[in-house]
């Protein structure tokens, strides 16, 4: 199927439009973060300020609690991603490979967890966690984020497992492996793209979460960066330059992670879909 040159040009133009649309808001974020305070409003609508500065960045890094927020976020998002991926691999494998009585109840339970506003859980979770000393602590946050992300991650991992032929485990079991050894040594290595995709998906979700971080944490020591970003609003009477600088810095790990895994996300989902 050769396509006409005019179609090719239209195709590339459309792609370009999408890229511009996707990147322009991010570009604006960057632009504001390098605009000196005195030009912020006077050159508010210019594409690029006449002078640029890194003072917002240096302030955020040197004089704010941002490095702490950043470290906390990294710990929380990283541990959540790893824990969720382990739990979701196990549960997704059970859903993909076993027929058992409670299967449909488990699926139903996981679907229901996707159906209500999580706001509803704030007060009950706070009430349950505070006697355990898990409020105002990073482990408490990891616990909550892990639970929130496990259902979707389980479905995701299940679709990856569904794409891997059952023959492989059976061959391994005949070769002398238990089902669990076959899962670990044969199936998991083949699901690496899926694991990468799940890790990335959960990492970005945990990295961005604001509501529970806000409600369960008070004080800078255990704040994650989204909460920290909001403190810029109150503390410095909305210093947009600094806030955007912090925002750009905070975007970096999430974006890096996402750039690395998005390929696998498509691949992995395709593999799952092939089997249908």
């Amino acid at each position, binding site marked *: 199927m050769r396509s006409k040159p005019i179609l090719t040009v239209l195709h590339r133009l459309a792609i370009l439009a999408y890229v511009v649309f996707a990147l322009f808001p991010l570009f604006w974020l960057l632009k504001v973060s390098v605009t000196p305070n005195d030009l912020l409003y006077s050159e508010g609508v210019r594409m690029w300020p006449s002078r640029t500065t890194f003072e917002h960045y240096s302030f955020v890094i040197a004089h704010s609690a941002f490095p702490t927020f950043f470290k906390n976020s990294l710990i929380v998002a990283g541990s959540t991603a790893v824990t969720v991926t382990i739990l979701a691999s196990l549960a997704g494998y059970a859903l993909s490979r076993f027929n058992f009585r409670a299967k449909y109840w488990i699926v139903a339970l996981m679907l229901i967890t996707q159906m209500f506003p999580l706001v509803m859980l704030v007060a009950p979770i706070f009430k349950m966690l505070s006697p355990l000393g898990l409020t105002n602590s990073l482990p408490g946050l990891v616990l909550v984020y892990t639970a929130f992300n496990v259902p979707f991650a389980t479905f995701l991992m299940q679709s990856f497992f569904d794409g891997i*032929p059952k*023959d*492989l485990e*059976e*061959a*391994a*079991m*005949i*070769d*002398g*492996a*238990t089902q669990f*050894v076959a899962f670990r040594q*044969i199936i998991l*290595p*083949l699901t690496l793209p899926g694991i990468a995709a799940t890790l990335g998906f959960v990492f970005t979700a945990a990295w961005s979460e604001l509501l529970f971080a806000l409600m369960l944490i008070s004080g800078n020591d255990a704040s994650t960066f989204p909460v920290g970003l909001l403190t810029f609003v109150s503390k410095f009477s909305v210093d947009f330059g600094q806030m955007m600088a912090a925002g750009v810095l905070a975007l970096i790990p999430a974006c890096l992670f996402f750039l690395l895994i998005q390929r696998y996300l498509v691949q992995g989902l395709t593999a799952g879909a092939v089997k249908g």
Partner: protein
Amino acid sequence: MASIDIQTVRKSFGAFPVLHGVDLTIQDGEFIVLVGPSGCGKSTLLRMIAGLEDVTSGDIQIDGKRVNDLAPKDRDIAMVFQSYALYPHMSVADNMSYSLRLRRSAKEKIASAVGGAAVKLGLEPLLERRPKALSGGQRQRVAMGRAIVRQPKAFLFDEPLSNLDARLREQMRAEIKKLHGDLRATSIYVTHDQIEAMTLADRIVAMHGGIVQQVGSPLELYDRPANLFVAGFIGSPGMNFFEGRYLVSGDHADMRLPSGTTLPIRKRDGLESGSAATLGIRPEHVILADTGALEAAVDLIEPTGFGIIMHVTVHGIPMKIFTQDRRMLTPGPAVRVDLPQNRLHLFNGEGKRVD
């Protein structure tokens, strides 16, 4: 090496019965082929022997020991899958040694076992490759290699050649036979291809609808098929059948066809005169002769090179004839044929063979 004993084994998936009581005793070192149309339960039976499916009822014994409740890994059997099921992330050598590594065999022992198998199968130059970089035939060999390094009690094969092209299939068939000659390992081989069954088996188990139809040597099944199913399934082109009535007059008998024609046949003891019966004759046993008793209208000629398959109609009944007589490439509109009595098979109303 081991014997395998299958005793009234049944299998249902939920309420859906798939195997209706299979009995089979396999001798040590024997090559058994399970053959039958697809969906008849061959794979299910094989997978139960392997431990991949639960046994609904009945017993499976390996070497006299009941294995119903043993996990596949504890049965010491090897299996070659139709898809080969090679581990994509491991090299050929690692694929072959995986079972030994799981058993924590010594390094030297693993190396010599893998080396030995590689030599036998001509895999030495491929040992470091990933399965993705192999051709279909090479993958098939690796799958075989993975099975033989372990020297298991028995080999199970589930349609191992179905994914190969015809030429390669023929070649691998011969290799499997040679390998079995060398190793003399108890083997159970599942196929829907009756040529594979005929060429490989010490004994064939013909299955249909979850029931064993006949067990015997390939020639027994060919010469004395126990029922209509086996008669039609074994042999290619398939056996010709004529339905009609079995009539005894004195010390000889006749088959009366619906058209009214009668064919003289040998008298059988186990069948009452007047009962419905089916007469069968293989296409290669039909004799073409100008003096033949029957006239056959020629419908179609299929030359295969080796011979000719003629599609004809006898008294309104379609029939096939196999001949190597090249003159038959251009026959007239009709030929005369004979159905020699000693080549005729007779089946009663239930489809069972009557001798």
